[in-house]
């Protein structure tokens, strides 16, 4: 099958106050149409930076240097002009951020911001308001009410649903969800994942899910990429990796998950000297 997005030899380094930090080291992977790909790894392993580089949302050079190629629809994203990029952002690839409470502009209503996103890419939609309300309903919100609500008037879970609605506004092919449930509690986490699952099926979306929750990986993702210190250490089918991790880092990462009922034991950490 032809990959939708092909990442090849991606190498990212940041320059901060004269110090070069190598964040992503020469990684390659493919994203296939209509699959759910999970990128797992601890904090600082480079998974968010990888995802941001797909939309080229990283700071401009010299603060950040990106090497390699990222191919989306025969285009190298890293070589596009700002104008060409804007056509892909939102309409081709959409992004859902980790913190829903800060992802909306506090001074405008949710409806206004979603309508704004629609107008940006879909010129053919006549009744923008009706379409926005329809979108809000699609993610399981009371569309009429939420359209006129300010971001701070909604709960965290509702904000994340609205954020997903906004990401879906321009009918993207790929949805990158950067830890969409990290800021939410367990029950809401499940609802959001169910929602993403449902949307993936109905909207024929390709989802790239960035997470460190193996429960979500196992129930939602078909394929997994495990990243550690800027490198891909293991990739494969999610069932296989969660049940039978091959790489010691993946094993350690899974072993670190605390379980209920476990007592009188130190929480496990990753010992880098082991591999």
């Amino acid at each position: 099958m032809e990959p939708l997005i092909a990442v090849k030899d991606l190498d990212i380094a940041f320059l901060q106050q004269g110090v070069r930090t190598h964040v992503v080291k020469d990684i390659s992977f493919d994203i296939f149409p209509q699959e759910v790909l999970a990128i797992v790894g601890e904090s600082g392993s480079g998974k968010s930076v990888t995802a941001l580089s797909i939309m080229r949302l990283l700071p401009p050079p010299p603060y950040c240097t990106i090497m390699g190629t990222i191919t989306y629809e025969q285009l190298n994203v890293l070589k596009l002009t700002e104008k060409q990029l804007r056509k892909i952002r939102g309409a081709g690839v959409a992004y859902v951020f980790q913190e829903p409470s800060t992802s909306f502009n506090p001074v405008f209503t949710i409806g206004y911001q979603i309508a704004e996103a629609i107008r940006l890419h879909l010129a053919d939609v006549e009744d923008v308001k009706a379409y926005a309300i329809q979108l809000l309903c699609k993610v399981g919100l009371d569309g009429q009410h939420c359209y006129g609500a300010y971001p701070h008037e909604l709960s965290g879970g509702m904000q994340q649903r609205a954020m997903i609605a906004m990401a879906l506004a321009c009918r993207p092919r790929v949805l990158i969800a950067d830890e969409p449930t990290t800021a939410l509690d367990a029950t809401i986490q499940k609802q959001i994942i169910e929602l993403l699952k449902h949307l993936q099926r109905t909207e024929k979306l390709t989802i790239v899910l960035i997470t460190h929750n193996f429960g979500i990986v196992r129930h939602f993702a078909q394929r997994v990429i495990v990243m550690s210190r800027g490198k891909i250490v293991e990739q494969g089918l999610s069932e296989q990796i969660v049940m039978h991790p091959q790489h010691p880092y993946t094993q350690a990462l899974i072993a670190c998950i605390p379980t209920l009922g476990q007592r009188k034991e130190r929480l496990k950490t990753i010992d880098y000297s082991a591999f």
Partner: protein
Amino acid sequence: MLKTLFRRLLATWQGKLSVLILTTLYGVTSLAPLLAPYDISQQHLQFSFHPPMTLKWFQNALYYRTYVRAKLPSVQYTPTQTYVPIQWWVPCKTYHVLGCIPCSHKLFGGDERYPFFLLGTDNLGRDFFSRLLFGGRISLSIGLVGVLITLWIGCFAGCIAGFLGGWCDFLTMRCVEFLMAIPSLYLLLALRASIGMHFSSSMAYFMIVTILACIGWTKIARVVRGMVAGLKTAAFVQAAQAMGQSTLQIFLKHFIPNLASYLLTAATLCIPSYILYEAALSFLGIGIQEPSTSWGLMLKYSQEDLKVFTLNLWWLLLPGIGISLTIIAFNLLGDALRDSMDPKLHT
């Protein structure tokens, strides 16, 4: 958006009171040529330091009292029992109300037997009421015009510094710090003195506005820079970028609306300081020059004869009261605006 803002503003007593005071002041002063019975430089030398007149209503007309002055050097006026009627709709030379409506009448004026000084006269016998209206025009507008210029400079400098960062930010902020390090009144005096004194009155007005704008932008620039630098990394700005909005769109739709509440509040709180600075300059004799006038300049003339001043404080201080009233009103308005613009206070 504006409508709801205005409704919220008028819901508070501060908002109501300040809007009432300010619309009255600005309304009355903008109608000055119509309302003022005399020209600002028309002198009635035999009536210097005339006290305000008592009005009386009888036989369906408004009358004012006449006075008798004691021997000339003294400014003792004794009221008589003679009343003369106020003349309404007095013909005069053609002028333009609000700069466009031609008019050849004054709303009211004095009888030919005795001039009409509603609020008394100053040292040269010029009608205080007329001068108050015309002076108010300058005092009140200088704040508005000054703040408009300041806002542009401050906002522009702040946005550039915050958005671009690096050496641009460094240069702008050092410039701001340098200007802030000098006490503003002395900077104002130095700037004024360096420009020179021989200007026509409209040029002097323009000079003062420019000088005020030059020293006032620093605070705004500093805060705007901080806010822009913060907004630049805000998640919703990144989200907007991820939606495919251009930098200009992000600037207009995300930066400016988030700065708006600060800018509007800062502007309303900046206007009073400009009015005060103008008053201070004029009071020291280096601001607005004769033949035009301002409230600061009127205060200067009021206190010229200290004996008279202490005896007639209550009306010679009227320009000062006008300044205080305006400043209080602007501060209240700034407070009320800040409250009504914060969406988090209205849930």
